[in-house]
């Protein structure tokens, strides 16, 4: 009894008072969804991720997403990153905005920062132009299509030409009802700059939950975006994400991903370097325990010469958890003088955990520098002994060592408050 139906699409769109074009968009996506088979381990990209235990038929759209407005929320959700540094804060519960503020300075600059539904009604031209057109396409797969049909909630950030956003933006998407379809759309026009922290979280529950998200990061010529997507869902969530960054001439995208929660995550993350001088860095931080399964598919596409990509994904694994990182650097013919790097390092905290690390290169140009590295290691007993020999108890020494493993990447998250919270989660998971 699957509730992902055409009627549900219409009902969702109507409940959101959407314009006709968005309803049409959803219906087209739904058609693609219906005509696309559910992936199986026979599909190359899904070989290492088995969905047998997912109760997909129990999932459904998030239509009455305001059911949870009375829920008591964890206190961190309402916290500013730092007292006076965040210029925009957006808190959504099940796709419904609970708290929202945008500083006068940012408003005066013409920066748009709001929930996606507000964007549809107030900035239809921009949304129509950029929503699943240049970033993620609904035809990329079953879950991309499902998202196109049932997306709900999420954040729109738009920075006009030659504007340096006066302060960082922060959004927190909290989920209560176990069904979340968040959409992040960031558009940086030529010569603009922004820092955006995008958090996804939920509590835990016995029933399986579902996150079907899309992230689109469109960075114009000479523009500069620092984006951190920070996921901390409950261990009951099944997450399917399509994420794409696109960088123009001499533009920069510094993209940090942190993944702590979910029962299973399958995410496709792609960096498109479209013009000479495009620069993209991807940093991944993840920690799995229990029976978590995390499968990250990354691509660095050098679509032009003189482009630079740099990827480092680091994971720590415990218990019977499993991670897969499959990375690909692609260079089109004629993409000369590119510099591409990818590395994945895993820290095995238990013998029962398993990490697969599969780098790949598809290079059709000859004057290129492309390298990859992967490593699987354990805690260094000499390091632990050294820390203990200074009076630090074993458990604290282990915590420090694991934090140390992540520290160089953690420094790429520009807010101490968020870093501390992730470190706190890591410590919690070590001791679980």
């Amino acid at each position, binding site marked *: 009894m699957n509730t992902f139906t055409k009627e549900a699409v219409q009902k969702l769109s109507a409940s959101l008072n959407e314009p006709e074009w968005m309803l049409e968009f959803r219906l087209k996506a739904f058609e693609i969804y219906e005509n696309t088979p559910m992936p199986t381990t026979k599909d190359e990209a899904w070989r290492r991720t088995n969905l047998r235990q997912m109760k997909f038929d129990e999932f459904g759209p998030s239509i009455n997403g305001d059911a949870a407005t009375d829920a008591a929320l964890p206190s961190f959700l309402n916290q500013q990153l730092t007292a006076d540094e965040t210029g925009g804060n957006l808190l959504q519960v099940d796709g419904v905005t609970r708290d929202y503020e945008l500083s006068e300075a940012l408003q005066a600059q013409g920066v748009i920062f709001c929930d996606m539904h507000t964007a549809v009604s107030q900035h239809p031209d921009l949304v129509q132009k950029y929503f699943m057109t240049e970033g993620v396409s609904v035809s990329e797969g079953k879950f991309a299509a499902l998202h196109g049909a049932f997306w709900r909630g999420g954040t729109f950030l738009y920075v006009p030409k030659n504007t340096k956003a006066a302060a960082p933006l922060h959004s927190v998407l909290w989920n209560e009802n176990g069904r979340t379809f968040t959409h992040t759309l960031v558009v940086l026009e030529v010569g603009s700059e922004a820092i955006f922290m995008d958090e996804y979280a939920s509590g835990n529950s016995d029933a399986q939950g579902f996150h079907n998200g899309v992230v689109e990061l469109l960075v114009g010529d000479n523009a500069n975006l620092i984006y951190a997507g920070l996921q901390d869902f409950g261990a009951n969530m099944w997450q399917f994400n399509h994420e794409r960054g696109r960088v123009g001439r001499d533009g920069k995208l510094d993209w940090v991903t942190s993944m702590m929660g979910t029962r299973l995550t399958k995410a496709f993350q792609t960096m498109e370097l479209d013009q000479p001088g495009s620069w993209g860095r991807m940093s991944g931080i993840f920690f799995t325990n229990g029976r978590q399964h995390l499968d990250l598919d990354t691509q660095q596409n050098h679509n032009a010469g003189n482009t630079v990509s740099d990827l480092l994904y680091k994971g720590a694994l415990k218990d019977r958890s499993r991670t897969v990182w499959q990375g690909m650097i692609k260079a089109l013919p004629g993409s000369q003088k590119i510099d591409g790097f990818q590395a994945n390092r895993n820290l095995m905290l238990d013998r029962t955990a398993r990490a697969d690390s599969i780098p790949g290169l598809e290079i059709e140009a000859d004057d290129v520098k492309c390298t990859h590295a992967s490593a699987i290691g354990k805690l*260094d*007993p*000499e*390091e632990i*002994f*050294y*820390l*203990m*020999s*200074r*009076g*630090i*108890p*074993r458990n*604290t*020494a282990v915590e*420090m*060592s694991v*934090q*140390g*493993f*992540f*520290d*160089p990447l953690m420094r790429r998250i520009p807010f101490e408050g968020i870093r501390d919270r992730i470190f706190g989660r890591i410590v919690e998971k070590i001791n679980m």
Partner: protein
Amino acid sequence: MTALEVKNLHVSIGDQPILKGIDLLIKSGEVHALMGPNGSGKSTLAYTLAGHPAYEPSAGQAIFGGEDLLEMEADERSRAGLFLAFQYPASVPGVTLAKFLRQTINSRRQAVNPEDKGISIPAFRRLLKEKMDMLGIDHKFAGRYLNEGFSGGEKKRVEILQMATVEPKIAIMDETDSGLDIDALRIVSEGAMRLKEELGMGILVITHYQRILNYINPDYVHIMLNGRIVESGGPDLALKLEERGYDWIREKHGALEEA
């Protein structure tokens, strides 16, 4: 008054006996030098006393401040007041020197009172600055990952910085002098001597050279050969070694080496 008393200590690695019955008594305020050729077991003794899990004693005792040292975990030994300045300190990637030192202080406080919130940041900064200045360590090292990419001499200075931070009762300095130039050797030695004079710290200096002993004057000198202390005496024993090398020791105790 705290003493470290080692009695008939035996340590094997695999089935290879390395320490074959060590006896040593170090009291507060005393300086002992331990000398001996490479591979004679000096570092093994140091590691064993510090509680390295790879060095399991097969016989003998070590009593520290009246307690059975060998029953304690490495961290307990440290908090009880025993310190080892390593010959080859490990590096701890991702953990800054400042964060690490702060944790060494906080772990001590929290062992006494689990509710302790730890040293305040301003107090810690003051302390760190004072100790770094005393040892001529550039303040920027505070923000660097512990021992990562440090030169041999920098690592040794940082070992003594740690010693000065935790203020041990008995310190073992394992070849702290190697890798130090003459100025650094003087600064580091003066740092150790200050702790001895101000706190009555006892010191076991492991070294090959008289050089460091000119700054940290030993009350007793011991010579280790093939897992045993074969000679003990006063400062003149070190001078004799400096002059004549180890050959006369080997000749005198050669029978032991073959055993």
